[in-house]
C-alpha cells in the first residue's frame, strides 16, 4: 500500500541518531516521519546510563546549541552530575551526568510526540523506494510504502546484529530487540563498503545484593552543573552517588581461566572493538602487569535497583561473569539481573559519505550514528542532527550545511570519519580537535546557535535567551576593555596585593585578567563592579585568559579556510594531475575528498601533492572542468 501522505524526510530508527534527525528536520518545518521497530524504545540507552564526558559533552552541548533534545532530556533525567577536568582549563572541562534510563526515555518521547511536523510509526523498514539512483522513500515489512524526498538511516547496531555470550551466539539488535536483517541485505546489495564492528556491555547487578559500605562513595559535584544552555537545572531530579570498587588478582585469575570460552579469544568474533572502552578480558590480556582496575558502580535510575558496573564489559560465559563479579569487594553476594554480552554488527565505511552525511552513491540517502562506525549516544545524536537537517535542506532544495573542524566537534567528527575512515568504533576525544581551545563546551551556543537560527532549528524563546546572553557578553567585554586602572591609585594598590609584579603603567581590566593571579571575580570585588551573571563572566574571563592562544588559532583557521574553500569535484580525475605519485593518487581515489583541505588531512598526502592539486584546480577553473561527468 502507498501511504497517502508524502514526507520531506523519512528517518529509519528511533535511537539517539534517529530522534535528533527527526526532530531537526521537523523543527525546520519539513514534514517528517520517524519509523522505528518499537515506540517503547525511543531514546533508549543501549548501554551505560550516562550522557557526556570528555569530548562527548562537547557534542551534547553542540546538539543543544542547535536546538536538539539530548541535553534537555539529560537535565530531566540526570541523577549524578560531575564536571570532569574541573581543575584543568575551560577548554577541556566536560560535564558528565548519570541518567535515569526511564526518565531519559520519557523526556525524549515527550519531545518527539509534541513536535509539530513529526509523525511516528512503529514498523520495521525493510527496503528503500528508489527512483533511478535517488532514494525516494521506504517500504516496511508489512508492505507500506512511505514516499519522501529523502531517507535517513540510523539503524544503530541492528544491521546484521549478532549477540555473543560465551561461545553461544544469536541474532539480535540489542538484548531483547530483533535485528534488522532485511534492510541489511538490501544495503549490502548497494555499492557501499560494509564491514563488521563489535561492542559489549557489562552484566547488570541488583543493588539489594551489594555492600556499599565496603566501597568508596563518589558523590556528584557540590553545585550541580546543568547540561543544557537553555535550562536552569530546576527540572533536575533527586541526586544520588556512584561507588568505586576494584578488580583484584583473584578476578584476573578467574578471567584468565575463562578465556578459552571467550568468543573474542577463540576467534568467534571477527569485528573490531573499541580500544578506549575495552572489555575486561581485553584489559587483562593487554595490560598483564596491572593487578587491579577501577570499577565504577553506577545507578541505572531512581526507581530501579539495577546497577551498571562500569569497566567490566564482557562477553565471557555467564558462569565466569558471576564468579568475576563475586570476586570484587562489595560484590561478594551480588545478584546479576542481566548478563553482559558483546554484539557484532554491520557498519558502512564512512569514506563513502559526503560531509552532509549524504551517501556518495545514492542521492537523498543519509547515514547517521553507529552505522557510520562510531560509538556512543553523543556521537550518534550529533550525526543524527546533521543528517536530519541536511535531509531537510535537500527537501527544501537548499544547499547543505557542513560545519568545519574549527567550528564544531561535529565538524571534527564527520571530517575524521570521512577523511580517515575508521577501523574500530570511533569515539570523540578532545585531542582529536586541533582547535580545542576554541571548541569548548561552554561556548557551543556562541559558536553555533546563530547558525541554528538561520537554518530554522531554533525557536523564538531560545533565540531571545541566547541573544540576551550574547549581548551581555559583548557589553561586559567592552567594559573590561575600556576600564583602565592607573598605577598608584587606590584600586591599583589593592590589586598589587594579589599580583607578583605591581602595576607599572595603566592597564585595562581585560589585560589584568590575563594575569594568572587574577580572575573575573577578584577584579570585580576590587573594582566593586559585578553586574553580570556567572555564564557571562565566565565567557569574558576565558576570552582574556586564552587571548594569545585563541588569536593564534584564529590565524591558523584563516589559512585552513583558504584550502577548505577550494572544492574538489567528487569525480575528479587524479590521473590528469601532473606529478602526483601513484600512492597519493590511490589514496585520493579511495577517499574522494570534497575539498583541498580535506585532501591535505588524508594520511600520506604530502604538502607537495596538495600544491599540485591546487595548481591543477586553478589551471582548470574557468576553462574546461577537470572532472569528467560520468553519469
Amino acid at each position, binding site marked *: 500500500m502507498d501511504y497517502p501522505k508524502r514526507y520531506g524526510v523519512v528517518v529509519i530508527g528511533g535511537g539517539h541518531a534517529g530522534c535528533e534527525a527527526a526532530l531537526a528536520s521537523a523543527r525546520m518545518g519539513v514534514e517528517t516521519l520517524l519509523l522505528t521497530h518499537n515506540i517503547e524504545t525511543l531514546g533508549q540507552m543501549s548501554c551505560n546510563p550516562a550522557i557526556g564526558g*570528555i*569530548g562527548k559533552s562537547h557534542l551534547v552541548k553542540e546538539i543543544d546549541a542547535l536546538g536538539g533534545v539530548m541535553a534537555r532530556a539529560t537535565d530531566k533525567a540526570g541523577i549524578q552530575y560531575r564536571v*570532569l*577536568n574541573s*581543575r*584543568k*582549563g575551560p*577548554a*577541556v572541562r566536560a560535564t558528565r551526568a548519570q541518567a535515569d534510563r526511564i526518565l531519559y526515555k520519557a523526556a525524549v518521547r515527550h519531545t518527539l510526540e509534541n513536535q509539530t511536523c513529526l509523525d511516528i510509526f512503529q514498523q520495521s523498514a525493510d527496503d528503500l523506494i528508489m527512483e533511478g539512483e535517488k532514494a525516494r522513500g521506504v517500504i516496511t515489512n508489512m508492505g507500506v510504502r512511505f514516499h519522501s524526498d529523502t531517507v535517513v538511516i540510523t539503524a544503530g547496531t541492528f544491521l546484521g546484529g549478532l549477540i555473543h555470550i560465551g561461545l553461544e551466539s544469536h541474532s539480535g539488535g540489542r538484548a531483547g530487540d530483533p535485528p534488522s536483517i532485511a534492510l541489511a541485505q538490501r544495503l549490502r546489495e548497494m555499492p557501499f563498503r560494509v564491514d563488521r564492528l563489535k561492542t559489549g556491555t557489562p552484566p547488570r547487578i541488583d543493588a539489594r545484593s551489594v555492600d556499599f559500605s565496603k566501597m568508596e562513595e563518589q558523590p556528584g559535584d557540590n553545585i550541580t552543573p546543568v547540561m543544557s544552555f537553555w535550562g536552569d537545572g530546576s527540572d533536575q531530579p533527586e541526586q544520588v552517588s556512584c561507588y568505586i570498587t576494584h578488580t583484584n588478582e583473584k578476578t584476573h585469575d578467574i578471567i584468565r581461566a575463562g578465556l578459552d570460552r571467550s568468543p573474542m579469544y577463540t576467534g568467534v568474533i571477527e569485528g573490531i572493538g*573499541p*580500544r*578506549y*572502552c*575495552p572489555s575486561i578480558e581485553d*584489559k587483562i590480556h*593487554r*595490560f598483564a602487569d*596491572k593487578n587491579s*582496575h*577501577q570499577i*565504577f558502580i553506577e545507578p541505572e535510575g531512581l526507581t530501579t535497583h539495577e546497577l551498571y558496573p*562500569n*569497566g567490566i564489559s564482557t562477553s565471557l560465559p555467564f558462569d565466569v561473569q558471576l564468579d568475576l563479579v563475586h570476586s570484587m569487594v562489595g560484590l561478594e553476594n551480588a545478584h546479576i539481573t542481566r548478563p553482559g554480552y558483546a554484539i557484532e554488527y554491520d557498519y558502512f565505511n564512512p569514506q563513502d559519505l559526503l560531509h552532509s552525511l549524504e551517501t556518495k552513491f545514492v542521492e537523498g540517502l543519509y547515514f547517521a550514528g553507529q552505522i557510520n562506525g562510531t560509538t556512543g549516544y553523543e556521537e550518534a545524536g550529533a550525526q543524527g542532527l546533521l543528517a536530519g537537517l541536511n535531509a531537510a535542506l535537500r527537501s527544501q532544495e537548499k544547499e547543505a550545511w557542513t560545519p568545519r573542524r574549527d567550528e564544531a566537534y561535529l565538524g571534527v567528527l564527520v571530517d*575524521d570519519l570521512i577523511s*580517515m575512515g575508521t577501523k574500530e568504533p570511533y569515539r570523540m*576525544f*578532545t*585531542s*582529536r580537535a*586541533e582547535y*580545542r*581551545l576554541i571548541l569548548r563546551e561552554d561556548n557551543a551556543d556562541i559558536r553555533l546557535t546563530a547558525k541554528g537560527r538561520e537554518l530554522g532549528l531554533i525557536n523564538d524563546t531560545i533565540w531571545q535567551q541566547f541573544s540576551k546572553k550574547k549581548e551581555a557578553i559583548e557589553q561586559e567585554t567592552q567594559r573590561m576593555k575600556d576600564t583602565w586602572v592607573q598605577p598608584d591609585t587606590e584600586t591599583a594598590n589593592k590589586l598589587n596585593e594579589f599580583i607578583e609584579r605591581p602595576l607599572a603603567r595603566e592597564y585595562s581590566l581585560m589585560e589584568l585578567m590575563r594575569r*594568572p593571579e587574577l580572575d573575573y571575580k577578584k577584579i570585580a570585588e576590587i573594582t566593586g563592579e559585578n553586574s553580570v551573571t556567572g555564564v557571562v563572566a565566565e565567557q569574558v574571563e576565558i576570552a582574556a585568559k*586564552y587571548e594569545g*592562544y585563541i588569536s593564534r588559532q584564529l*590565524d591558523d583557521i*584563516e*589559512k585552513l*579556510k*583558504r584550502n577548505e*574553500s577550494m572544492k574538489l569535484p567528487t569525480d575528479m580525475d587524479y590521473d590528469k594531475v*601532473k*606529478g602526483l605519485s601513484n600512492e597519493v593518487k590511490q589514496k585520493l581515489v579511495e577517499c574522494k575528498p570534497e575539498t583541498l583541505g580535506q585532501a591535505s*588531512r588524508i*594520511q600520506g598526502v*604530502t*604538502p*607537495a601533492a596538495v*600544491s*599540485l592539486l*591546487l*595548481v*591543477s584546480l*586553478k*589551471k582548470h577553473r*574557468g*576553462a574546461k572542468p577537470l572532472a569528467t561527468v560520468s553519469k
Partner: protein
Amino acid sequence: MNDVLHSTDTIAAQATPAGRGGVGIIRISGKKANDIALQLIQQQKYLQPRFAHFQKFYDNNQDVIDEGLVLFFPGPHSFTGEDVIELQGHGGPVVINSLLNRVLNLGARMANPGEFSERAFLNDKLDLAQAEAIADLIDSASEQAARCAIRSLNGAFSDHINVLVEQVINLRLYVEAAIDFPEEEIDFLADGKVEGDLQSIIDQLDIVFKEANRGVLLKEGMKVVLAGRPNAGKSSLLNALAGRDTAIVTDIAGTTRDVLREHIHIDGMPLHITDTAGLRESPDAIEKEGIRRAWTEIKDADRVLLLVDAADVQESDIKTLWPDFFAELPDLNKVIVVRNKIDKTDERSGVSELNSSHVINDVNEALSIELPTIRLSAKHGEGVDELREYLKKAMGYQSAVEGGFTARQRHLEALKQARYYLGIGQTQLTDNGAGELLAEDLRMTQNHLSEITGEFTPDDLLGRIFSSFCIGK
C-alpha cells in the same frame, strides 16, 4: 574568491641567490610588509608606492645593519598580489642574513620554496599559460627541496629531528592522556615526569640548534672578527689570511677606522673575516665611531679573534689587563686569544685549546681559566696555517653531536619556533598548571619540527595512548 585566497601571514626570503653579490634583495609579501619596512627604517611616514627610497636599515638596538633601497608595491599591483616590499642592500651573505633575521623578528615568516610564486598564482596575478609554467616551478621547488633534504642533510640532521619529534610525541602522550582520561587512577600531570621530560627536550633541542647553526655556517660561512688594541696587528692578520694587501698597515696606533671585510675560503669552507678599529678610549670623533662599529661587529660575530702583541702582554695577564672587554661580550665562548708578533718573543707558534666540551658561563669564570690561545706572527706567517686549521675545525669538525651536519636557515627558523613554544609551554605548566595550554604549545612544537621532517595525526596519538596506558572505564 580573491579575498578568501589572500593569505594571512607575511612571508619573507632572499630573492637574490645566496652568496656574495653586489646587491642582495629581500622580498617581503603580505599584510604586514609595509609595517615591517617602516619599523626597519624607523620611519612613520607613508612609503610612496613604486618609488626607490634610499634608507638605513636598523636592528633592534638602533644600530645600522645596512643601507640601501626600499621599494613598496601595494597589492594588488604587485608580483604576489599582496603588499610587497623589496629591500635592496649590499650583497654580502652576512649583511643579507642579518637583514633577513631582522625582518623575521619584526613578524614575517620565512617563505617556503616557491611560496611567492604560489601566492602570485593564487591571487590571479598570472594567466592560464603562465600557470602552466608556475606549476612546474612549484613542482620543481618541492622536488628540489626533497633532493636537497636528502643530499645536504646527509640523513644526520633528520635523525636528530626525528629523535626530538619522537620525544615530543611521547610527552604529548602523557599530557593528552591526562586531559582525555581524567578518571584514571594515575594523574599524568602531577608525577613530575612531564616537567623532567620537557626540560630534557629543551636541552636537546638547544644542542641540535647549535649544531644546525654550525651547519648553516658551513654552508653560508662563519663570521670571524679581528679585535684588539691598536697596533696589535689585526690588519696585518687580515692581509695574511686573505693573501693580499687589503688593509692599510702602519705602525701608527689607530690606523684602521672603518670595518673591513674579506671573504675567504679554507679548503672550500667559506669564511667572512672582518677587520676592525683598535679598541681604546679616543677623543677623536672618527675613531670613536670606528670603535662603536667595531663593537657591533664583535657582538654579531661567530668567532672573535682577540689579538694582543705578544711582546707587550704576558700570557697570564690578558684578562686582568682587560676585564671590561670580556664583560661586554655577549658570549665568552666565541673568543680566541691570538698572541701576535711571536717573532719578537721566543714563543713557539701553535694552538692551546680548551677542552672542547667546556662551556664558559660568566665573566668570572672566563677570567679564571685559560682561554683558547693561538701564537703566531702575522707579519712573517708563522702559525697562520695553524690558525686556518683551527678555524676550519671550529666550523665543521668540532661538533658536540657525532658527525655534524649541514642545515639551512629555514631549519633554524623552524627550530627557533619549536624552542619558543617549548619555553612558553614550560611556563604554562610550572606557573599556571595549565595542561591544556602546554598541550597546545607541544602541538605547535611538533608542527614546527615536522616542517623539517614528517607528518603525524591526532589519531596516531590516541592509538599510542591506548597501547601505552590501560585506559577506559
